[in-house]
């Protein structure tokens, strides 16, 4: 029997009994996911969002309270972890301290009754795959990065259908983490094994995953490619958790196709943004989300601009020609120069502060503004989103 998905979760619920009082803690609240064969799938969310519990249910360490977990179409209900064709790389590696590196990697093969010579051959091959040759060392004699490689080899040597990774790079320092990210991606690509990768690091998820499921409070809020998650977040939580976002509260005053006009709360200011899938009605309270790097700051035309090669008036004229845009006046409150970018805080409508990120192209394009300067604030409508929750 062939199945469309490597792993499928159908309305999976996990409740933990709470000590003392009756009732239970819902760690995972009715989630459904479909994970494709060969996919690098990330479960992303803050700590306590249920991502690790979800992974542990797939591994078999926890039994779902209700719902189904299917592995290549076969329900996994009641199947103990040692009979599931999935393997886990644990956050703290969980290497057996009383065994050598080679014995650690051979352990899984011995459990399959693979002959000793064959097991040793395969274990050594797996260790070479992760570029480790210290077979006879004990785990405690290895560095964190090396232990991580042993854990990876120990899981991969079993040739699992799906590899589960529970924040495997969490304990490594930044530089090593970056290198391992790249290595994991290459390895996943070469071996063509489905990876389910749990992380709370949004950058890691964006970098590595083919698709991301953003979780919060036991629920899956959005599933999509890194681009979809970043560019078109479904909820305020997703927009806030992934990258930096400006949120503006207001009331929807007009709808024009898939564009909405929002009158900002406490400010004399109307902005434009794309309507999300929630499709709110005119008069509803909504939130407008726009990324700091999507906002452009423009010098006011009446200022002296003879120093610059591209006159402000010319740029303004181009901006004026845009049909779907927000163009309001603002005042620079703060300017933080941070090397590649300058990070501005700009107040619009007299009371709303926006973070604006401007890349430092240099003098030629005139992107430096100073504190207290009045500027035009512009963003294209399709870069801003209207969110309801």
């Amino acid at each position, binding site marked *: 029997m062939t199945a469309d998905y490597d792993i499928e979760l159908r309305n999976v619920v996990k409740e933990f009994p709470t000590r003392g009082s009756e009732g239970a803690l819902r760690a995972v609240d009715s989630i459904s996911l479909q994970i494709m064969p060969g996919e690098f799938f990330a479960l992303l969310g803050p700590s306590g969002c249920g991502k690790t519990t979800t992974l542990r249910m797939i591994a078999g360490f926890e039994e779902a309270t209700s719902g189904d977990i299917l592995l290549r179409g076969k329900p996994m209900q009641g199947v103990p972890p040692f009979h599931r064709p999935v393997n886990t790389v644990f956050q*703290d590696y969980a290497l*057996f301290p009383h065994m050598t590196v080679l014995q650690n990697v051979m*352990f899984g093969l011995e*459990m399959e009754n693979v002959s000793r010579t064959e097991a040793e051959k395969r274990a050594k091959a797996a260790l070479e795959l992760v570029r480790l040759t210290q077979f006879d060392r004990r785990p405690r004699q290895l560095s964190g990065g090396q232990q991580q490689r042993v854990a990876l080899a120990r899981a991969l040597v079993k040739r699992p259908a799906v590899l589960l990774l529970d924040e495997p790079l969490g304990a490594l320092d930044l530089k090593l983490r970056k290198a391992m990210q790249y290595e994991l991606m290459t390895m996943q690509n070469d071996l063509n094994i489905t990876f389910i990768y749990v992380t709370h690091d949004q950058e890691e998820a964006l970098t590595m995953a083919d698709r991301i499921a953003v979780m919060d409070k036991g629920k899956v809020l959005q599933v999509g490619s890194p681009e979809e998650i970043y560019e078109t977040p479904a909820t305020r939580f997703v927009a806030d958790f992934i990258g930096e976002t400006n949120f503006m509260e207001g009331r929807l005053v007009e709808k024009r196709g898939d564009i909405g006009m929002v009158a900002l709360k406490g400010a004399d200011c109307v902005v434009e943004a794309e309507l999300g899938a929630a499709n709110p009605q005119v008069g509803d309270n909504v939130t407008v989300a726009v990324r700091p790097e999507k906002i452009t700051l423009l010098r006011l035309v009446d200022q002296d601009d003879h120093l610059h090669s591209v006159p402000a008036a010319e740029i303004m004229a181009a901006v004026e020609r845009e049909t779907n845009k927000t163009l309001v006046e603002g005042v620079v409150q703060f300017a933080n120069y941070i090397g590649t970018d300058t990070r501005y805080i700009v107040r619009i409508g007299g009371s709303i502060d926006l973070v604006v990120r401007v890349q430092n192209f240099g003098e030629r394009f005139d992107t430096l503004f100073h504190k207290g300067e009045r500027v035009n604030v512009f963003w294209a409508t399709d870069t801003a989103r209207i969110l309801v929750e």
Partner: protein
Amino acid sequence: MAQVALPDRSTQPTWIAFDQAKIRRDLLIRRFGKVFGIVEPVFGYFFLWAPILLLVIFSFNDSRTVSTWRGFTLQWYSNIFNNIVGTEARFSTDLMLQSLGNSLFVGVSSTLIATIIGTMVALSLARGNYPGKQYIDGLLFLPVVIPEITQALSLAIFFNVLFNWFNSVTGIPAQSGFGTIIIGHVAFNISYVAIVVRARLADMNPRLEEAARDLGANEWQTFRRVTLPLIMPGIISGALLAFTLSLDDFVITLFTAGVGTTTLPVYVYGLLKLSVTPEINAISTLILVASTVLVGISLRLQGRNVAS
């Protein structure tokens, strides 16, 4: 952006004053503390070790009287292996060695049983999940804290009742012997073994067992290949502790003993009834050395850390 209020410089002192008297007082307190830190353990260890040290010293004293030091001798050690303990007519080296043999037999048997049961109790308490677990956990410490005489009496009464009932049902007269002593020793040793093994289990990373199961080991294989090797130092340490306690036990042994089951401590106590002789000092010193070595090994094994 809100204006940040800067502190008004004019109201702050331009220099910082030190209270010399306060500093002197605090330094004095610190010096007292340092002196006390040296003196206090000397006092403590003196009360703890002086009597034992005296016993050891006088086991090498070349005089029958305990009061004065007359020079070094190994006479008393040689005496106890030559059927002489002062004027004690009942003493014989054979009897002493026989009682030592009894002690070892009781010690080994009770240690084996207590180690197996104690380890199972520890595993159940550390990994099990059942109602009332915390109460069983608390009860575990009971044999450690209740007076030994209470436990000894309760065992004596228990066996008495049991034997009476057995006699009335089967007509066969049952009586105390090695069996009752071993059961008595197992009764208190289970606690010690369980406490030591459970400490070891608590230190163990639960992910290790999960990793084993994840890699295809069933519950028995996981226990055999991962859990047991990792808690083995704890089990051995608990067993050595149990063996030592069993060897040294007097009260419970006396209350559960039968005919011909005299253990070494009971035998030594019998000799003491008449007078303290240098030979008894020598025997006690030998027991002390054996116990210290065993407990030392036990502590060393407990101290070996479980790498996660």
